[in-house]
């Protein structure tokens, strides 16, 4: 019988056999996930068979639910496939954000908050499906209190407490904490407007004579990260990057990584961000803020994973 449950130490391990059940199921969680020319540390990668187009197309290989924490802003982000087969993107802002509690159409246009064709979702964390197999469809954190995932540090197998904290609530069927102080407000957008291709819909959205375009995972990711940046820019104090992006050379040697690790160790860099480690988007090579080496995805062939380099 296939199981949706995952052990807490599954990140980065060899993927299990694919789950062929028709119920939403979580895919093996890679250490990093390549997307739109960068890499993120995913918190959830799900397949939702009912929503995944069966015909071949650009959606092949795309997950149907992808959750991560945006490194630049610390905001939880989510991409979720809709019934139409099109992807939607979501960003959550914490309590205290200037737009927390705003309906999406109440956001003044002068603020310039937009994504794709505009926001069309605003809601608290959706706990209506918590504890059910449909939990994969809800717009909510994977964990209400986002745990830090520090890629700069190898996990200590003997540190059971840290492991327990970092993976608390990893069970997708677990009931989330409903503490108002930790409640986030989600803004979202969809890609099922005229001109967008909806793979599972009979009627495609035509805009004029042009063929509809499928807004793929990379496009939606770019819009989500852009939306997170727009929302974060509204806060008074823009906090520094949560995690330093990679150096210009994306394939750093183990020696260089050790050197970088030593240089960025606590106490060495007095100006290191306090919230370092909350989330890790990988920026493209050449970023001027580069300070730390990248960690390669061991699951990706030909990308220079750690084992391959060694």
């Amino acid at each position: 019988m296939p199981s949706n449950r995952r052990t807490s130490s599954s990140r980065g391990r060899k993927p299990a056999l694919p789950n062929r059940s028709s119920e939403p199921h979580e895919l093996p969680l890679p250490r990093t996930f390549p997307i739109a020319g960068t890499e993120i540390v995913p918190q959830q990668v799900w397949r939702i068979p009912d929503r995944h187009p069966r015909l071949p197309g650009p959606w092949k290989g795309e997950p149907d639910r992808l959750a991560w924490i945006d490194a630049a802003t610390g905001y939880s982000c989510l991409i979720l496939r809709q019934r139409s087969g099109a992807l939607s993107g979501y960003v959550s802002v914490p309590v205290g954000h200037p737009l927390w509690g705003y309906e999406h159409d109440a956001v003044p246009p002068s603020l310039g908050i937009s994504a794709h064709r505009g926001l069309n979702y605003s809601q608290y964390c959706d706990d209506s499906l918590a504890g059910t197999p449909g939990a994969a469809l809800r717009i909510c954190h994977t964990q209400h209190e986002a745990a830090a995932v520090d890629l700069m540090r190898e996990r200590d197998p003997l540190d059971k407490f840290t492991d327990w904290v970092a993976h608390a609530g990893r069970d997708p069927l677990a009931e989330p904490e409903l503490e108002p102080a930790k409640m986030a407000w989600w803004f979202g957008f969809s890609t099922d407007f005229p001109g967008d291709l909806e793979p599972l819909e009979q009627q495609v959205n035509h805009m004029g004579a042009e063929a509809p375009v499928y807004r793929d995972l990379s496009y939606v990711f770019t819009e989500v990260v852009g939306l997170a940046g727009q929302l974060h820019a509204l806060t008074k104090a823009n906090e520094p990057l949560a995690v330093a992006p990679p150096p210009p050379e994306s394939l750093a040697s183990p020696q260089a990584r050790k050197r970088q690790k030593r240089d960025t160790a606590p106490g060495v860099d007095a100006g290191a961000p306090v919230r370092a480690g909350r989330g890790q988007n990988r920026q493209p090579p050449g970023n001027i803020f580069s300070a730390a080496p990248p960690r390669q995805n061991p699951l990706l062939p030909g990308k220079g994973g750690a084992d391959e380099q060694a």
Partner: protein
Amino acid sequence: MSRPNYDYWREPSLPWGYWLQHEPHYREVRDEEGRVWPSLHDYFYTHRLGLEPFNPSFLEHSMRRMLAAFCAIERRGAGIEELAIEVFDGKRDVARHFLMQCESERLTDRGMLTVEGRAVLHMLELTQAPDMPAIPVGVADMPRVHPDDTSIGPEERERVFGAQEAFARDNLRFRFIREKVVSSPGIKLVGLALGRPMPFTRVIWSMEFANDAARDRMFAWLTLRLDRWADWAELVLKSSAQTLTERLLQLMLAPE
């Protein structure tokens, strides 16, 4: 022979119809001549206005429209254009006919409510249908500040605003508040929207302003229409924030 003034034989400070008696089972009312009427609204519509209600729901709809129109007339001297937009679904002819009928029945006098008109307003406030957005009792009597009135100082203006805000906080589910939108002076329409997991207050409409003076002018304009806030919130919930923005623009262009 002209009809004697209402306040000649009635107490003007009491709601219209105070002289009626309830039947023992509290379903009908009895007038001074012993005639029994299905309701106070029926008595007013049939006996006072000389009209024939088609059915109870039509009667309640008419009474609600009359309440909205009388509130608008009392608080801000609303004219045909504003009444047509807000009360009569954009039909200017119906609004004009309504105002002419009110004049002929001496419920208004040159566009202002008469003593009897105010008594009718109070009666309608107190007898609203419970299943519709309520116009709060006493809203027509709240102090008001006209946005263009330069004779009122800032302290007095703030005092009136404070009274309006306190009234709205206590009586309205949705209300406009003056609060910053991100970092600019702004006005928000906030209210308790039911939802999971907690029914927190939400912002369902907002607008930014260049400075506090511009915001206060808009807020004064809004407080003149305090009786419409509940309906405007319903408009946003049923349609969108954009719809309310368009409605406000239409009203601002309507001559007062």
